[in-house]
């Protein structure tokens, strides 16, 4: 099995106070800590597990700058065999269509049986790159996989629907599957893994290597352009309970008592 996993290096924002940068179209990225996109971490784990069972290779691919190497190294340390980084300032990597396009041109030159992506990226949240890439490559896809079972020429996928409901579908290989969180338990990186990863090479490609030109991957050919970014408008802003923990707890008790809940 030749498996490709598309991974994205994203800022961790859950506990960070985000600010807008000077352009007004992006966040201020200074001081942010980056890591692999959560969904992609599950995808990498799934790929490695399939490889461990059926043999073959796992190749991780990203479009990003040199800082993305830490995410690629992490994947290599976990057990991926090869890594490809596409780095080129001419690529408008904030556009999901362009990302899918550049990935498709990269993957057309490699042989594969299965491509895994995350369901969505935690920063942009388009949930678009996976199925768009499948269409560009002319292969079938299944999104939101909660379980993947490899057969001879096909794959049985449990995909998640709403409200706890799921469905089972069968798809012919080669195929693309987008992976949902919870499908497995991603492993941690071992010291051994890190040592091994140091020896593995990261292949770096530009759009020239892919036979693409600036126009094809730039703003002109992009579908989306962010005009403005802003802090969310308040819908029903909570009334904040202030004070030390003792006072806060008392106030909470008072509120729930006044509603007859205790």
């Amino acid at each position: 099995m030749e498996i490709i996993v598309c991974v994205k290096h994203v800022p961790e924002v859950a506990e960070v106070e985000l600010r807008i940068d000077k352009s007004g179209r992006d966040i201020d990225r200074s001081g942010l800590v980056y890591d692999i996109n959560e969904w992609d971490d599950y995808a990498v784990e799934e790929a490695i597990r399939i490889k461990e069972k059926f043999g073959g290779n796992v190749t991780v691919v990203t479009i990003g700058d040199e800082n993305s190497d830490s995410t690629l190294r992490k994947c290599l340390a976990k057990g991926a065999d090869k890594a490809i980084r596409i780095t080129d300032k001419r690529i408008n990597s904030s556009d999901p269509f362009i990302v899918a396009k550049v990935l498709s041109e990269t993957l057309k030159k490699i042989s594969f049986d299965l491509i895994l992506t995350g369901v969505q990226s935690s920063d942009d949240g388009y949930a678009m790159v996976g199925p768009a890439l499948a269409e560009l490559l002319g292969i079938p896809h299944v999104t939101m996989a909660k379980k993947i079972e490899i057969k001879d020429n096909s794959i049985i996928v449990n995909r998640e629907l709403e409200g706890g409901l799921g469905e089972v579908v069968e798809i012919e290989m080669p195929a693309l599957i987008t992976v949902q969180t919870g499908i497995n338990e991603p492993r941690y990186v071992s010291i051994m893994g890190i040592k091994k990863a140091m020896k593995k090479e990261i292949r770096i490609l530009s759009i020239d290597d892919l036979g693409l030109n600036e126009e094809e991957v730039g703003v002109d050919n992009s579908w989306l352009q962010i005009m403005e970014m802003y802090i969310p408008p308040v819908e029903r802003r909570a009334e904040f309970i202030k004070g030390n923990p003792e006072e806060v707890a008392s106030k909470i008790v008072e509120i729930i008592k006044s509603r007859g809940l205790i």
Partner: protein
Amino acid sequence: MREIIVLAEHRRNEIRDITFEMLTKGRQLTETINAELVAVILGKNIRDKAETLANYADKVLVIDDDRFEFFNSDIYQQALSTIIRERKPFLTMIGHTSYGLELAPSLAVSLNIPLVTDCLELEFSNGNLIATRQMYGGKMYSKVNVKKSESYIVTIRQGIVTPIEGKARGEIIELPPPVIEPVKKKFIEYVLPTVGEVDISSADILVAVGRGIKDQANIPLAEELAKTIGGVVACSRPIVDKGWLPSDRQVGSSGKTVKPKLYLALGISGAFQHIIGMKNSQLIIAINKDPNAPIFNVAHYGVVEDLFKIIPILIEKIKEVRKKT
């Protein structure tokens, strides 16, 4: 006249809420840009549903065909491509749902029509489409300008629009069965949700924990609070993903929808997939370290603090009250 197409979503003999939400939004848009609202429904034995849709849309296009018995994006894509190529709608609206996510990107790529996903709001200015989206798990909003085109495709977030009763008397148009090329994907069966011992959707009080609970070893703390207060422990998705609580405790789009008298959100950021499942709770109190956590936009009361500093004291105080009464 220009057309706005809404793809009706239905499953297991029911039209899904997102359909009415999109029809409501679509109706508002037709009024601003002078267009007709066209619902498209594909399925097997769906004529009654077409009648329902006719209350909302000016036209309802129906394909009633065995091949649409179950949703299969490959088959839907072929049928919908034909409709979009022929009618050239100004806009096609699809739900940002498990079905829409499977269908919209490949449909858009195959037709070379620009797509913007997970839209909260749409505006048109000089024929340009501008969409409002969220980024960074709801911590930022963005206005996105879509590449100028004769036709656009969007996916619409669930639970954003309040559907209103339809007053239209749309014309129902049956389309002939389309030619469908063989596909490489096959529906096999549904997998029903597992039924556990606890039904969080019928509890009056929920103590809901998120990733802020940090470790499995802290779950008993939430359980103690729940027991003291007379409630049940629920959670956000990562807690189920990690296997710390069973899946029937999950609140949100892929979990349960709950409306308790009290929803105590502990260390939950408030991603929309979570909020959609709990926003109608009667009283929401959220404890989170991050003052900008989106959960505070739906909570009635908020506490910006480390939950581990509050919970033990809260448990003691509730115990005191219980003793007195």
